[in-house]
């Protein structure tokens, strides 16, 4: 089960690729053959199951494309 999850606001993305360069599990890439409303190829998640919810993509994104969720720690979930 994935430890994290990102939601991508595709129409904000400018395809700059900064998030791709920092993702520690290498699951981001730019879309091929399709473009968003601004005319850029938006970023996509290739393997949602591998996402750790570390939010490094959101930390470097200049265009606030990402919303990030992370699975609660088990102890916290019980409380």
């Amino acid at each position, binding site marked *: 089960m994935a430890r994290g*999850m990102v939601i991508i606001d595709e129409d904000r993305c400018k395809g*700059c690729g*900064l998030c791709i360069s*920092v993702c520690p599990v290498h699951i981001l890439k730019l879309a091929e053959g399709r473009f968003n409303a601004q005319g850029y190829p938006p970023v996509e998640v290739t393997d949602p199951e591998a996402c750790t919810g570390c*939010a490094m993509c959101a930390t470097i994104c200049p*265009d606030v494309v990402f*919303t*990030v*969720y992370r*699975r609660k720690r088990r102890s916290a979930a019980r409380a």
Partner: protein
Amino acid sequence: MAVEIPEDMELVYSYPESLTKVRTHYCPGCTHGVVHRLIAEVLDELGVRERTIGIAPVGCSVLAYYYFNMDFAEAAHGRAPAMATGIKRVSPDKVVFTYQGDGDLAAIGTAEIIHAANRGELFTTIFVNNAIYGMTGGQMAPTTLPGQVTTSSPTGRNVQTAGWPIRMAELLAELPGVAYVTRQSVLDVPAIRKAKKAIKLAFQTQLAGLGFSMVEILSTCNTNWHMTPVEALEWAKEHMVDYFPLGDTKMTDAVRALKEGK
């Protein structure tokens, strides 16, 4: 967006309230967006958005007033510190900040920033330094590195004729009215996290009325440096940080106590 969020997931990052939903006009990969976001996150965390007034500069970030979800004023080129002085003195209960680039702050507005800092005006300046004039087409700025090629220094900046790059953070640190000046960068994830802490401390310095505060942020201009966004981050880390060392250039004892009290 109809995405189902599993119940055991918690939100760790979402759109800051202090930014509007307007899409920025910045080039893809421009770090202005990162700096905007950090300021917005800090204002959200401090809970002061509704009593904050920003001053937009002239330069690439001239349209910053569209992007921040708060009151904003637009200053004449370089005059943001003068405008901020007036606004803060008339409304001392407001949180006032200027957002300026290197052309605005270190060239045409040098007099304003030095005197505002020297008077110890109680506002915060966010100074984005990318070593070039971005908006006008990549000309040499006061912060352009020695030997750096720009459209107005096609053979590289010659320090014999064009002088040396100005280190604003060090310059302002000499002034007694200044409470907190630091140089940070947004060139990688750890640096961005540190920059956010510095921006927060600068606003806390203002809220505590301790004096003038400024955060200089080393930034990129991939378009006018003729690089990809990722290459620009690497270039800045390799070349800019040597000439513009990161770290606090001034922190009064009161600001240090404020920082350590947190």
